[in-house]
């Protein structure tokens, strides 16, 4: 590879300059913050760190964070698969508008996402009086936090699946149907095995966002300690109380989650590449050396 590129390579000093610039930038803006989270969390030793994590409020925040993610992900998985099926396998009018609308939550500020649900379900909101009369709490309670998280993580899975299913075409599914498979048989035996890595990829990204969301959840949570505090909100409260160890201990759990996310994402990317490479090598063996 380097041999064929020699005529089109940068001079050595440019190469090293670019390498130093790029890696230096990443070191200062990514590497250092990542290390700092753990160093700050362990600043007073392991016992103080574990103590901070064993606190009941920290534990309930972790529980709520996991609970919200478990409530949100199935809804968005079903939506993502349905939307990708309709968009990738059929032609209809307004398709590109639909794709743009699915992207909308990516463009909306998390704070605005929280606000729109306050306007609907808050005390002075559209459904506020009705909800109060029936003693249903959505805002400043867990249901509101789930709805806000649903909004924020809405596009992730659909965005992964649409291009994947478009590139796969529909011949395999059509073959299954014409051989007499029912719709569900076709879905479980043909479609799902084909999209499983893409689906998993979307779920990994959506999960990271669901567990880490701050702005939207913060607006609708009401910050009731031990009740409507997710881990990111718990980090904020402790930090504002100058509890540096507690804040960074909770933050380190979220940073570990981020690292697990990155590893899982890389593994899935590698699996997807391997599967497409297997197909490609049959057609055109790659040059080596």
């Amino acid at each position: 590879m380097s041999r064929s590129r020699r005529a089109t390579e940068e001079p050595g000093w440019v190469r090293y300059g670019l390498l130093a610039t790029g890696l230096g930038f990443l070191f200062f803006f990514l590497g250092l913050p990542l290390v700092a989270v753990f160093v700050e969390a362990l600043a007073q030793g392991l016992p103080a760190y574990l103590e901070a994590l064993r606190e009941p409020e920290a534990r309930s925040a972790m529980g709520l964070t996991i609970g919200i993610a478990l409530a949100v992900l199935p809804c968005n998985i079903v939506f993502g698969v349905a939307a990708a099926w309709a968009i990738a396998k059929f032609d209809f009018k307004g398709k590109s508008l639909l794709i743009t609308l699915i992207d909308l939550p990516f463009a909306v500020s998390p704070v605005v996402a929280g606000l729109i649900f306050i306007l609907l379900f808050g005390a002075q909101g559209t459904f506020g009086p009705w909800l109060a009369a029936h003693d249903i709490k959505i805002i400043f309670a867990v249901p509101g936090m789930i709805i806000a998280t649903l909004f924020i993580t809405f596009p992730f899975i659909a965005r992964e699946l649409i291009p994947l299913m478009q590139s796969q075409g529909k011949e395999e599914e059509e073959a299954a149907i014409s051989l007499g498979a029912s719709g569900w048989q076709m879905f479980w035996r043909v479609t799902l095995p084909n999209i499983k890595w893409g689906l998993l990829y979307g779920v990994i990204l959506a999960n990271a966002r669901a567990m880490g969301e701050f702005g939207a959840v913060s607006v609708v949570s009401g910050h009731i300690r031990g009740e409507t505090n997710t881990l990111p909100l718990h980090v904020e409260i402790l930090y504002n109380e100058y509890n540096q160890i507690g804040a960074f201990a909770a933050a380190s759990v979220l940073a570990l989650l981020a690292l697990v996310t990155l590893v899982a994402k890389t593994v899935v990317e590698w699996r997807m590449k391997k599967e497409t490479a297997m197909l490609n090598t049959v057609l055109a063996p790659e040059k080596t050396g």
Partner: protein
Amino acid sequence: MTTHSHRVLPGFGLSLGYTLVYLSLLILLPLGGMVLKTADLGFAQVVEIALGERSLAAFRVTFGASLAAAVVNGFFGLVVAWVLVRYEFPGKRFVDALVDLPFALPTAVAGITLATLYAGNGWLGRWIEPLGLKIAYTPWGIVVALIFVTLPFVVRTLQPVIEDIEAEVEEAAASLGASRWQTFLKVILPAIFPALLTGFALAFSRAVGEYGSVIFIAGNLPLISEITPLLIISKLEQYDVLGATALAVVMLAISFVLLLAINGLQWWAANRYTNREPLEAAAGRASAGAAR
């Protein structure tokens, strides 16, 4: 394409119907409801709130810092993407995976960490402050937080495009006498420019709405380092729901314009680099420049 193939696969009505209902209930109706809410205020009052001294200052800080962060990431993102695609170095796969950290790390964690790093006694602040530059608790802090949060966008939109540049095009330019710098300016840059602009716009759009990472490092002084999302929240906390809504609708309108612009850019980028003609024409242009 034809109505025929519609009939072969099942589930069109079900999947599209479900998609539209879910989209409407969760996204469109709530957003529409907020826009309708501003009808209570009237257009003139929305404009008055949006152009108030404090709101205007918040918009200026938000857009200024977002623009600065997107420019910084446009430059360094190009360098990082180039290095990751074209050069070999130990630990490359690790570095490549690390680029996505800002997508995976919750913004609150980024916020408190950057604030701690850049504070006067922090690892970085203690070296930077003696130089006369305060970063934490100033508008510069906002820029730093936004650089972190939007770092992956430019890198990730550029990487596949740089990978797709065919070696022959660069070889052609070189063999026709173009210097490496001319080849970059006249062959490579035009080929990757739509993607660079897309990454820039994605970064800018994300930065404008960002809240979690910014509030810890910004200092949040009204008129100086207060961003619009924070102003919306403080209006909400003072029970000024209409004021918050007016600002939110302005933000929403801006996000929507940015979203349309990004879609347009992506379409341009997709049609640009799959088409080989402009690249070959560009190789000719570069050599023409060299001849002159």
